[in-house]
C-alpha cells in the first residue's frame, strides 16, 4: 500500500518536475531604446526587466517598470516619465506571447537559434499585437540569452508628443532587448 502511494505520488509529480525544468527566468533583463533625429539623440536603458519563459510551450512574458529607465540627462528622464509615459498613472509596460523556433531540448546544447517572437505588447496602457525576429543563444557553459530588436511607434500607444518637440523625437523608436535566463 505504502509502495503504491509512493508510485502514485511520483507519477503525479513527474510532469510538474519535467515542466519546471524547462522554465527559465530573469530579473535583470536589459531593455534599451533609442530615438534618433537630426535635432537630438535620446537613449535610455533599464536593467531590471523580469521575464519568465516556458520553453516547452514557448510561452514568454516580460515586465518593465517605466520609472526604472535611466537616461543620460535628467530633463529627458523627467519629460519621459511626466509628459509622455505618465508613469505615475501607468507605471508598467509588458509583453506576453510566444517564442517559436527553439525547443526545450535544443536549449540543452550550445548553439544559436533564430526565433520568431509574437504576442501583445502593452505600453502606456495600450495593447498592440507584435511579431518580431530574435535569437536565442546557448553558450558552452549552458547560459541562455535571448535577444531581439524591434521598433515602436509612440502614436500607436497613444503617447502624445507636443508639437514644439515633435522634431526631437523619432516617429519610430528602436528597441533592443537582451534577456539572460536561468532555470527556475
Amino acid at each position, binding site marked *: 500500500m505504502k509502495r503504491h502511494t509512493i508510485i502514485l505520488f511520483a507519477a503525479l509529480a513527474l510532469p510538474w518536475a519535467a515542466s519546471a525544468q524547462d522554465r527559465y527566468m530573469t530579473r535583470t533583463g536589459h531593455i534599451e531604446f533609442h530615438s534618433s533625429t537630426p535635432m537630438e539623440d535620446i537613449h535610455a536603458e533599464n*536593467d531590471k526587466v523580469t*521575464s519568465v519563459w516556458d520553453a516547452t510551450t514557448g510561452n514568454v512574458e516580460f515586465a518593465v*517598470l517605466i520609472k526604472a529607465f535611466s537616461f543620460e540627462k535628467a530633463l529627458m528622464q523627467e519629460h519621459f516619465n511626466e509628459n509622455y509615459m505618465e508613469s505615475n498613472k501607468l*507605471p*508598467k509596460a509588458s509583453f506576453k506571447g510566444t517564442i517559436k523556433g527553439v525547443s526545450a531540448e535544443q536549449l540543452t546544447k550550445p548553439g544559436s537559434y533564430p526565433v520568431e517572437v509574437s504576442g501583445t505588447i502593452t505600453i502606456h496602457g495600450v495593447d498592440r499585437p507584435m511579431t518580431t525576429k530574435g535569437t536565442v543563444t546557448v553558450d558552452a557553459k549552458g547560459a541562455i540569452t535571448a535577444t531581439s530588436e524591434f521598433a515602436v511607434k509612440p502614436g500607436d500607444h497613444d503617447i502624445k508628443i507636443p508639437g514644439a518637440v515633435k522634431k526631437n523625437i523619432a516617429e519610430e523608436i528602436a528597441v533592443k532587448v537582451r534577456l539572460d535566463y536561468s532555470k527556475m
Partner: protein
Amino acid sequence: MRARTWIAIVAVAIILAVGFALKEYNRAPQGAAAMDAVLTVQATELHAAFMADEAVARLNYVGEQEQAIVVEGVIREMEQGDSGATVILETADPVAGVVCEFAAGTVPASWKPQARVRVQGICTGVNDLIPDVIMMRCGAVE
C-alpha cells in the same frame, strides 16, 4: 552711453539665460545618496506594503515626484553586472526581494550576503512576474 549700458545688460542676461538653459539641459540624474531621504523602512516592510496594496505603497514610497528613501535589510544576494551591481535584500517572499541597483564601484567592499545594510535609493515600484521592489541609483548608508 545709456544705450550701451542697456545693450551690455541685455547681452549679459542672454548669456546667463543660455548658460542656465544649457546647464539644465545637460544636467545628469542625481544619485539618491545626494538627496535628502524622506523616510526609512525595513526591506520586509517595504515589500509587504507593495504586496498588500500596490497603489497605496506607490504613493508612500515612490511618490508623485522623485524621492529618496532609506531601506534597511539583510543581503540575500549580490550580482555584478556590466555597468554596475545589484544587491538583493531579503523579504518574506523566498523568491522576490528588494532589488537595489548601484553604479559600478559604489558597493562597499565589506558588504556580503547575510550582512545587515542600509541603502538609500529611488523606489520605482514593484515589478510583475517576479514581484521585486526596484530601487534605482542607490548608495550605501554607512
